[in-house]
């Protein structure tokens, strides 16, 4: 087992190299660069622009830029933003917890919705309740998130008796937990709703399969109450692949928060990535992508390990 973990971790390095190399190249293929954006519609003097590029290190060949960047990363230096020469690490330190918190809350909400609904739907298979629940699940993943978000922010503000909006200024969880949660609750719910559809359907499918197994029949024959059968035996066995799905959803989670961050004014990684992309801030984009990729790869590894721990039949060589 240890050898497996070690091997996976070692193989992570070339994967990360690959991802960052491709992203670095791709982002430089985008038309314009940071200087074009900085100059805006004052870009008439080519020489000034070139001087600026030299100062920012943009006139060096791609390989040199990339190697320099990797060198910096190896020392823990995420580099400086091309836009205003402030350290990228500072930005990330502020924004990562925001996205992380939102993602976690969203995940919790989605599990709270999806698992009970999935179990219920499986137990009442092919009845009207099942159809309604499954339709609800599809509806939840079909409704565009930003549409819900705009509704969510507009409706409470026109509520006749008490007009409310979530706080506009982000406060850290440790500084002001109530303001922080008030700001996060709506986007977390919307995120959770979006995710819950697929989780619910998987739960239902898993439960259906598990419920047909012999050991379930046995436990019923033994005289166990239906409740115990479902939760103690069936669900525990059904849960495993759901964990895998969470791993796949990670990537969606991270990309999907841009819209919510914009509407609910959260200084998260999604907006930062989008802004950096639009400003052609190469080091910032590379840093964020590196972070994301690492998180996803590590998360998938953890999921695989969790898998092995939960299901003793699975062993890795």
């Amino acid at each position, binding site marked *: 087992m240890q050898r497996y973990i070690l091997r996976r971790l070692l193989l992570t390095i070339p994967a990360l190299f*690959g991802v960052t190399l491709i992203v670095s190249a*791709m*982002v430089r293929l985008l038309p314009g660069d940071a200087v074009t954006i900085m100059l805006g519609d004052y870009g008439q003097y080519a020489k000034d622009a070139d001087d600026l590029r030299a100062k920012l290190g943009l006139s060096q060949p791609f390989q040199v830029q990339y190697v320099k960047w990797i060198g910096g990363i190896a020392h823990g230096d995420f580099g400086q933003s091309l836009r205003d020469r402030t350290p990228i690490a500072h930005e990330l330190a502020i924004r990562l917890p925001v996205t992380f918190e939102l993602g976690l809350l969203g995940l919790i909400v989605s599990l709270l919705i999806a698992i009970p609904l999935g179990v219920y739907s499986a137990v009442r298979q092919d009845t009207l309740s099942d159809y309604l629940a499954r339709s609800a699940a599809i509806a939840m993943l079909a*409704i565009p998130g930003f*549409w819900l978000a705009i509704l969510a922010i507009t409706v409470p503000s026109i509520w006749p008796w008490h007009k409310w909006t979530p706080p506009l200024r982000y406060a850290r969880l440790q500084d002001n937990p109530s303001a922080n949660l008030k700001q996060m609750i709506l986007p977390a719910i919307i995120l959770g709703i979006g995710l819950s559809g697929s989780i619910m359907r998987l739960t239902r499918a898993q439960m259906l399969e598990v419920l047909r197994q012999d050991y379930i029949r046995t436990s019923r024959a033994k005289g166990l109450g239906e409740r115990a059968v479902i939760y103690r035996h069936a669900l525990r066995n059904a849960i495993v*692949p759901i964990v895998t799905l969470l791993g796949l959803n990670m990537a969606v989670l991270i990309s999907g928060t841009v819209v919510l961050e914009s509407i609910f004014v959260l200084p998260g990684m999604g907006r930062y990535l989008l802004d950096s992309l639009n400003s052609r801030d190469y080091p910032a984009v590379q840093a964020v992508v590196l972070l994301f*990729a690492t998180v996803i790869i590590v998360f998938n590894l953890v999921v695989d390990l969790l898998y092995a721990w939960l299901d003793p039949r*699975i*062993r890795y060589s």
Partner: protein
Amino acid sequence: MRSEQTKLATIPGALPAQASGRDQATSQRVRPFAVLWRFARNKPLGAVGGIIVLIMMLTAIFAQQIAPYAYDAGKGADRLQGPSLHHLLGTDNLGRDMFSRIIFGARVSIEVGFGAVLVGTGLATILGVLSGYFGGLFDLLFQRLIDAWIAFPALVLLACLVTIMTSKKTSSTSSIIIVAIVIGLIVAGGSTRVVRSVVISIRDMPYMESARCVGCNHLRIILRYVLPNVIAPIIILATVQLGGAILAESTLSFLGFGVKPPMPAWGSMLATSGQQFFLRAPSLAIWPGLAISLAVFGFNMLGDALRDVLDPRLRGSR
């Protein structure tokens, strides 16, 4: 590799039908209409989904004939009208007929959706089959590549690819193709994994071995034995991902990277004028939103039902 196989056993649809040969024999004697009817009776939701999908596809194909107006024709004076005899769903902020735009939007969504899934599952099939069948070093490296591919933040990939490809001053129609390809590439990542797992699970089956003994070359084995077993999970994946592709297009449009106007795409209709006029004329957002939701609903329900039917392990429980 056995561990991978056991893991896959827990994901429905991931493993091939064990009794595929027998099924082929029985289905030859059944008439297609009766099959459909039985399908509709047993899986009403799936039937509803199927009908929705059918309507959508017909709308997309015959958009030109069905739509009362061109999608870019309108007068400013007619803007933001409610539903009427002339305009079934009212007009948008530029005076264009919403009903026609929704119809043409179906065409765009179908094109983007099918295009994306075609590219995605096509790529996934080829790569997954090759990787799973031949195995070895190629497979090992490839697996890590796929890991890296999945680790890509979709947003960056989508934004970059779409921007790069449209920077050469492309037209609206080619932007549809580009968006489709880009979404397809994203979709290909996860799908490749599934296909590969399926191939691996049947690679060491006795009948495969006997085929090799008999002297079939690799190509023949792949075509005759591997592919048929891979088809079912792919269909299931495809139907579900169709809905996802349509949703992806709408999110891309929201962020400014989707299909370019004046071509109406539900996503960009929702994201631009829908959002802008949300307070004034909510219908501009409601119709495209409903269309997207319905399309995704339809594809997913159909996919669900197909899986229930095609996956024999669930057959006993209907």
